[in-house]
């Protein structure tokens, strides 16, 4: 139980901070949400810069081009990354946080060689083909069929919530290869090239008005059998490896950045006049904000504990569900209060009069997804109560 960073950790911090201070401003502002070409360029070129500087794949093994940083270096990385307001992982999310790690653990040598080096260099964008209209929380109910025909699987189905589908080269795709097996038993995990015939992409605008998500319709798409990762019908196990990453430290920098957002809220409150005093003079607001600070510090300590626990195996533990629930509720509460501080000016989703409306409202709207995506809060509570507390499954 030692929170001291070692001398080498601190040296790493100095090195990383120096690099970020120099590179982040140079990389400029992220393009408009609907400028897909710009976004891909912005996100992937940043990934390439990280790679060239030796900061890509911070927790990836060296053999895959990663930094293989120690647990404490990873924490330094998340902290400094957040502090520098460095670019969000963006279109590289699925490759770096799902596809790549899954291939490392479950892929063949050929599959690893074909994708991992490109993913970590930002040369390959991946998307996720897991959920379906009737398989959301109940992911294992997925219906997309893959039937063997020669060296291919012929895939038919309908995926949804596919982020960055329109700019991806590959899709981590879950398909049903044995329709007669029990629900969890007949699923396989495929790498689907997105340029195959029969793939149709329809954007599904979010309540923020962006088109980050798509529906993906698959009609007789021929995916080579060689693109299967893991054994046939063993895809559910492979998937569970993947999913845990989402509940682990995928959002660590975002969690740390909440600290900054709270500090910004305080500054904004000080700058706003209400009833002839600053909004920060309102003691009720201060008490809420102080309470949030306690929770934010605890959240970051939870991450430290979670990272340390997953350090040995590299796979986040079940406690990751607790981190996700805590982060979700806290983010929603902080942003709700932030909206209240901005008050009537929050009727505008663009920044006016030096108020950070655009950012705050985007985050407030986005925060609604946190309790839904990557396992809803209800699913997380089921995971905790069943797998940690030992209660029976729902019947």
């Amino acid at each position, binding site marked *: 139980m030692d929170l001291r960073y070692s001398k080498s950790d601190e040296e790493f911090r100095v090195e990383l901070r120096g690099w970020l201070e120099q590179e982040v401003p140079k990389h400029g502002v992220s393009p408009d949400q609907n400028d897909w070409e710009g976004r891909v360029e912005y996100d992937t070129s940043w990934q390439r810069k990280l790679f060239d500087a030796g900061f890509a794949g911070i927790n990836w093994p060296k053999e895959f081009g990663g930094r293989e940083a120690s647990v404490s270096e990873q924490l330094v990385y998340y902290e400094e990354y957040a502090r520098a307001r460095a670019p969000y992982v963006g279109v590289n999310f699925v490759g770096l946080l799902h596809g790549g790690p899954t291939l490392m653990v479950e892929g063949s040598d050929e599959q690893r060689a074909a994708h991992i080096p490109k993913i970590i260099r930002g040369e390959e964008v991946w998307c996720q083909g897991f*959920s379906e209209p*009737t*398989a*959301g*929380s*109940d992911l294992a*109910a997925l219906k997309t069929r893959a039937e063997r025909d020669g060296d291919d699987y012929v895939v038919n189905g309908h995926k*949804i*919530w596919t982020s960055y589908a329109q700019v991806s080269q590959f899709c981590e795709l879950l398909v049903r290869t044995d329709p007669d097996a029990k629900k969890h038993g007949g699923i396989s995990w495929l790498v689907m090239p997105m340029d195959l015939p029969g793939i149709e992409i329809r954007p*599904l*605008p*979010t*309540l923020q*008005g962006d088109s980050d*998500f798509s529906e993906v319709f698959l009609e007789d798409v021929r995916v080579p059998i060689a693109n299967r990762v893991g054994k046939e019908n063993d895809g559910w196990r492979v998937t569970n490896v993947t999913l845990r990453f989402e509940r682990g430290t995928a959002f660590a920098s975002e969690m740390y950045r909440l600290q900054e957002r709270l500090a910004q809220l305080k500054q904004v409150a000080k700058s*706003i*006049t*209400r*009833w*002839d005093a600053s909004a920060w003079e*309102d003691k*009720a607001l201060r008490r809420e904000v102080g309470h949030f600070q306690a929770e934010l510090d605890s959240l970051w300590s939870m991450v430290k504990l979670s990272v340390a626990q997953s350090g040995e195996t590299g796979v986040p533990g079940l406690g990751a569900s607790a981190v996700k629930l805590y982060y979700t509720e806290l983010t*929603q509460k902080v942003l709700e209060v932030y*909206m*209240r501080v901005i*008050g*009537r*000016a*929050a*009727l*505008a*989703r*663009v920044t*006016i*009069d030096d*108020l950070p409306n655009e950012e705050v*409202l985007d985050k407030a*709207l986005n925060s*609604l*997804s946190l*309790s*839904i*995506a990557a396992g*809803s*809060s*209800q699913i997380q*509570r*089921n995971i905790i109560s069943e797998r940690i507390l030992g209660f029976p499954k*729902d019947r």
Partner: protein
Amino acid sequence: MDFRLSEDQEALKQGIRSFCEGRISIDQLRELESKPGAFDRALWGEIAEMGIFGLRLPEDRGGVELNVADAVLVFEELGRAIAPGPLIWTHLAAGLVEGADLGDTVVGGLDMTGPSTELIMLEHLESIDTLLLLKPDGIERIDPKAIDATPVEIPLDPFTPVHHAKSLPAGERIADAETAKEWRLVGTALASAQLLGIAESTLEAATDYAKKREQFGRIIGSFQAIKHILADCFVRQEAARAAAYAAGATLDYPEVGNVERAVSAAKVVAGDAAMKNARASIQVHGGMGYTWEVPAHYFLKRVWVLENVFGTIDEHSDQLAELVGATA
């Protein structure tokens, strides 16, 4: 004393609901969304024909001669449907601003009795014919075209376009402090009624969805996790209903209680209910709730707008603290 709705009130409510279902459905709102200012004068005229603006005017002045309590029921229905436009202001202005009751004059407004801020946010500026300023010492009228205001490119609520301004030109005083005070109270009650309506329709939408949507081989509404979220929504809805109706009934007959207290209580409780139910509705809709296509988000966005008119939950709570221990 009988707190239930009278038969006439039930009929009034039903009439407005039918009108909203026929003319302000979600599909019709979607069409409106693409129009300039998200405003439709023809629809506004139909709303006027329903008697919504002239509701409390005497019959001999072309009104329906009803009470605030009745107006609360009407605005509850308008809230359910998230009917757009400066409905409360035009309703308040009926009888004072010519043509408001008939829908010929679209009246917008700004409540300036609350905490001062440097930034002035004006709703529906491009659609209104008259802007009224509600100040502690009276009501002033301004020509909207005379205002130096910047349109906001992306409003939070797609149906509530806003402009922002640094200052406003001098207005013409058209009513005294007493009227201003009454307007503020009635406006607060009607905003609370709209929030109540949103608390209802968000619960209703989530309930309908939870009865249809299947996961794990059963409807999600068969899971206690969902059932209990929505049971809590129902409790909040009923508390909001009681509070909003009480505000209306107390405004009509101030001898039954403390008007300020009843009105503030309504804004607080209906505001909380609408905010929490709108969020719960998105949550129960799952991924679909996060899309633009499913209308759940429109309701939450409207709640944020209504939270910021006629005093926030915090402001009303602060006022209520002063009234604790006073005679109800």
